[in-house]
């Protein structure tokens, strides 16, 4: 299977502190790839590197074989229409309502009529499970769970093939988190999306991910979910078989 996204030998340094030391990662079409790692292991830095928000000190990021750093401004612009991103805190534009938030990427990338914009924004809002009334609300009026969903609606605005989710279920109660997981599974199936998610939520990993990459010591160990659970690395063992891990689905793989 072709790698949709390929990260090779990425090095990220902040002063003397080395976050990534030759990190490799491959995401194939149609999979849900989970990125896990301890706090400060560089998950968000990796995401920023992939999104082109940060230039790595060394290494390459390739989308469908195209090197990110070699792309022209126009190519980069076009690339941004092919993926959607949700940020940890939602990062909704606070001066725009939900519908306008969803319409913003469409206005930037697509040529649509005003009616199509309105209706398509509403389709996205309903698609992520928000009531239609939420479309006219401002981010400050939304609950945490609704903000996550609205951010997902915005990420889906231009029909991306690849979806990046940064901690999609953090700060949600377990029921809302499970509902969000279901939503991701459902959207992946219906819209044939490839999903890359950073998460700490073991339930989310076991419910949604087909492959998992663990960032340890500046490298990434990636494997299928079953494989990674049995990986002998002490951090991974502690992660999946620690008190919290084994109390949930962690024992499943063994």
């Amino acid at each position: 299977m072709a790698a949709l996204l390929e990260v090779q030998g990425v090095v990220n340094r902040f002063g003397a502190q080395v976050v990534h030391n030759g990190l490799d990662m491959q995401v194939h079409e149609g999979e849900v790839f989970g990125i896990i790692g301890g706090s400060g292991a560089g998950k968000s830095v990796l995401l920023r590197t992939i999104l082109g928000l940060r230039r790595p000190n060394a290494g390459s990021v390739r989308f469908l074989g195209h090197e990110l750093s070699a792309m022209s401004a126009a190519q980069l612009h076009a690339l941004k229409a092919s993926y959607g991103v949700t940020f940890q805190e939602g990062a909704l534009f606070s001066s725009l309502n939900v519908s306008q938030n969803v319409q913003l990427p469409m206005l930037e990338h697509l040529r649509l009529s005003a009616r199509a914009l309105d209706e398509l924004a509403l389709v996205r809002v309903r698609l992520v499970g928000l009531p239609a009334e939420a479309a006219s609300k401002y981010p400050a009026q939304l609950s945490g769970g609704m903000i996550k969903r609205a951010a997902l609606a915005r990420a889906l605005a231009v029909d991306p093939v690849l979806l990046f989710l940064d901690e999609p279920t953090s700060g949600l109660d377990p029921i809302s988190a499970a509902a969000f997981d279901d939503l991701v599974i459902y959207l992946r199936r219906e819209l044939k999306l490839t999903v890359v998610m950073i998460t700490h939520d073991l339930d989310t990993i076991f419910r949604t991910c087909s492959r998992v990459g663990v960032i340890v010591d500046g490298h990434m160990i990636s494997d299928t979910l079953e494989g990674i659970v049995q990986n002998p690395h002490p951090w991974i063992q502690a992660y999946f078989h620690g008190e919290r891990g084994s109390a949930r689905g962690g024992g499943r793989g063994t």
Partner: protein
Amino acid sequence: MYLTARRDADQLNVTLLGEWRSQRFPDIEAELGGIDFSGARRMRISAGQAQLDLTGAWVLRDFLERARAAGLAVELDTPRPSTLALVERCQSGQPHPTHHIEWLDPAHAVEGLGRRAVLGLHQLTGGVSFLGRISVAGASALLQLRLRPVSVARHVYDTGVTAVPIVSLIAFLISVILAYMGAQQLGRFGANIFVVDLVTVGVLRELGVLLTAIIVAGRSGSAFAAELGAMQLNEEIDALSAIGVDPVEVLVVPRLVGLIIALPLLTLVADLIGLVGGGLLCHALLDMPLVQYLNRAQSAIASTTFWVGIVKAPVFACLIAICGCFCGMSVRGSSRELGRLTTLAVVQSIFFVILVDAVFAVVFMELDI
């Protein structure tokens, strides 16, 4: 080519082709718009070979509705595109969003007026209660000797020391302008010597303190509003309250005290530079020796002239700090609010500074100072 349409008597056969992606929206719309419904009674659509994303599916659904509205019986071949079902589910029971312009509605205008009136009233009561909170917090800080000297020093530095260059420059330029204008007008009466009176009295009584206050309102009033507003958006102010620390005491009072210290000092600097600027211009333009300038200045300035100016500085400092902090603390919800209230802070504090300056002028005149 996103479709082929074939006419079979009164049946229209439409086959969808290729990728119906959102980026291709205008082309697809154009091709669909080119299909002629006239004379057709039935339409059969096969979408098996096309790939539709959500936008594509919405376009198709829109097209189907148009066809139905034109009186055609529409039939879709299986397999139906899965995204079409998604769009249908999301739009079911949903009235189409309608565009209407609210502000054209007279009722809306009346409602807007009422809203503004109530908002203004709220702002007024909010301001008064904020004033009360500052007084209480300031008094308790003073009584319990919790004046946070480090924080106050930081604000003296931020609002005072770093403003010295711009304040000096403005004071210099204004006194030069004043002296120049005076020399032009008074020279016609041969009263060149009164340029000194004009500059020294003008700078010391009014311009030094007023211009400094306006610059500080622009620099620090906006900074206060933006800092506190960002903290409000970030829930830092709620966090302070939750910890049991009074945000007014730790955030507002040090800014207020800092500015009350800094603004008179800045005014002093502005006065000095203004006098120097006036002297230099008199020397250059009127060939007046500096000694003569100083002598004349001494006789022009009454013992109260300097104090009449400088006494206004702490009052202006209070106005600027309170306007800035009040606007900052009032920020709720969005970054647009932050911008609006930061602007409001500057506009309000400059307005109040000039208003109070006018009141001072009247009072001093009545007192004959």
